[in-house]
């Protein structure tokens, strides 16, 4: 409870300071949302020409896009502290975190909150709603629960990627850019059905970096699509937990990384 109330207090302070510049905030919000609208527009253009992609219609892909978009937007909003962690290490701010009687993971997590990602979030969410209205998904309690768990898990997945990037700073000072391939690139890749990719690629993004578990497997389940050969049905049921597992592993990685922190200017 102490941690939760502290977190909410930190978030309140962050939001307040971001709202101080109201015009710039609104402008960011709008530009964020419109950039992501263009994103989906590109996908729609493609479908104007091909009608379907590996057996997926435009709005089925829209559903995929919506889920991953929501997860990524929320992850950017709450995982900002890890995303910009490089600066903390360079400035030596991490020293301050280490002298406080709170966990390092918690402190970095609550250090920042990027409210303007609400723009991106709402755009993805609207696409998800439209896709849902265009599709005939038979919703049940199980499916709603499954979707909610998937969204939380997918958010954890992206936060975990930020954590990996942040942890690498303990050795390299500079965040490894390669993580961006998986975050921004992941959203792009995840916006298409995984069956279009090559086998090794699918395996890598299922078992090593569980990107396919964020939206592809959940979408298969929710839309009751035919499970492709080579994919186990049980795997589809369990997919939403991959994000939690991945998150847990990166937390351990983080803990180990902290022990290697060298500080600055000895």
């Amino acid at each position, binding site marked *: 409870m*102490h941690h939760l*109330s*502290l977190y909410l*207090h930190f978030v309140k*302070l962050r939001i307040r*300071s971001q709202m101080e510049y109201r015009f710039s905030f609104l402008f960011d919000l709008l530009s964020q949302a419109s950039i992501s609208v263009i994103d989906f527009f590109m996908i729609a253009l493609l479908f104007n020409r091909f009608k379907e992609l590996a057996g997926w219609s435009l709005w089925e892909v829209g559903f995929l896009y919506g889920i991953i978009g929501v997860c990524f937007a929320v992850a950017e909003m709450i995982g900002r502290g890890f995303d910009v962690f490089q600066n903390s290490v360079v*400035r*030596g*701010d991490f*020293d*301050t975190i*280490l*002298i*406080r*009687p*709170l*966990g390092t993971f918690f402190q970095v997590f609550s250090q920042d909150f990027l409210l303007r990602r609400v723009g991106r979030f709402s755009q993805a969410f609207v696409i998800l709603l439209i896709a849902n209205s265009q599709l005939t998904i038979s919703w049940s309690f199980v499916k709603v629960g499954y979707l909610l768990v998937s969204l939380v898990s997918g958010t954890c997945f992206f936060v975990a990627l930020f954590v990996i990037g942040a942890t690498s700073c303990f050795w390299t000072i500079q965040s490894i850019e390669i993580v961006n391939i998986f975050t921004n690139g992941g959203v792009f890749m995840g916006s298409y059905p995984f069956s279009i990719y090559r086998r090794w690629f699918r395996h890598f993004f299922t078992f090593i970096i569980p990107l396919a578990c964020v939206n592809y497997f959940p979408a298969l389940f929710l839309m009751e699509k035919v499970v492709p050969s080579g994919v186990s049905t049980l795997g589809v049921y369990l997919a939403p937990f991959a994000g939690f597992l991945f998150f847990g592993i990166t937390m351990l990685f983080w803990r180990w990384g902290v*022990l*290697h*922190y*060298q*500080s600055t*200017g*000895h």
Partner: protein
Amino acid sequence: MIEVENLSKTFKVYHHRKGFFGSFVNLFSRKHRIVEAVDNVSFSIKRGEVVGYLGPNGAGKSTTLKMLTGILVPTSGSVRVNGYIPHRQRKENAKHIGVVFGQRSHLWFDLPVQESFELLQRIYRIPQVQYNQNVEMFDGLLNIGEFFRTPVRQLSLGQRMRADIAAALLHDPEVLFLDEPTIGLDVVAKARIRQFIQQINTERQVTVVLTTHDLDDVEKLCKRVILIDKARLCFDGELAALRRLLSTERILSVDYAETYSDISIPNAHVTYREGNRVQYQFSPEEISTADLIGAILQRFKIVDISVQDPDIEELIKTVYEDNRALEQKLTETTAIDLTNRDT
């Protein structure tokens, strides 16, 4: 209170190749060298002591403090602060220590001082009564009230330092670590902070460990000093003892009437020469002051001559420059100076 035994810290310093291709190569092969930042340092500090932890830049002062505060993990050796091992029981240790780094603020840059303090109250779970009492007391001693509602980023250096020190003491820590608390401050601000540290120490029995380059800080605050140089401990004892130990070396300043090419005198060495002004350093055991003056008068014409005991800054400089000579002296006089050091 603080026990440090055979503490060492080594850093791997990587050689960075430059340019685009270089940074690519860096990913796969990195040359490094090992830098010893702290080498086999041991000391213990009792409750209520004020200890100056001194050394030149890069000697390993900050690294030691960072190991005592749980920021860095030691390479070898053991540390205990209030019975806690800082890097393993970091959170527990953090509740009982206060930390101030002169070069950097631990407060929230864009928040007013008051809100920073209230955040700390939440983080450390300080009871309201204790919080109010402390804020009132710090306002009385450091006048933090005059900038209590100003954002930290708008504070002057002196105000910021006052705010930072008060913030570090809000949760009533038993030990206060100060890394260059008076750096960059004017004389008035320095005096105020020194007085505050002294008061906190006497009234609350707070143990204080401070690093500084300002020897006034040391003279005003610290009975005991620990000197480290090139990562090693080279003196641990009372400030007075250090001065006694080293003040056997004296300095003779002479203004010559003419410019001489050879001004060397046996048993005294020239430490400074500019124009006709020359300083000799000598040890009265090797040559008495009278003999030295006699030798000079015999050979040269002089305008002025004076003998002085080196001030503490000079003393410490000699320690840094001539570590080995000191060690030798220490072994000779250990009996006097180090036996009363308890463990």
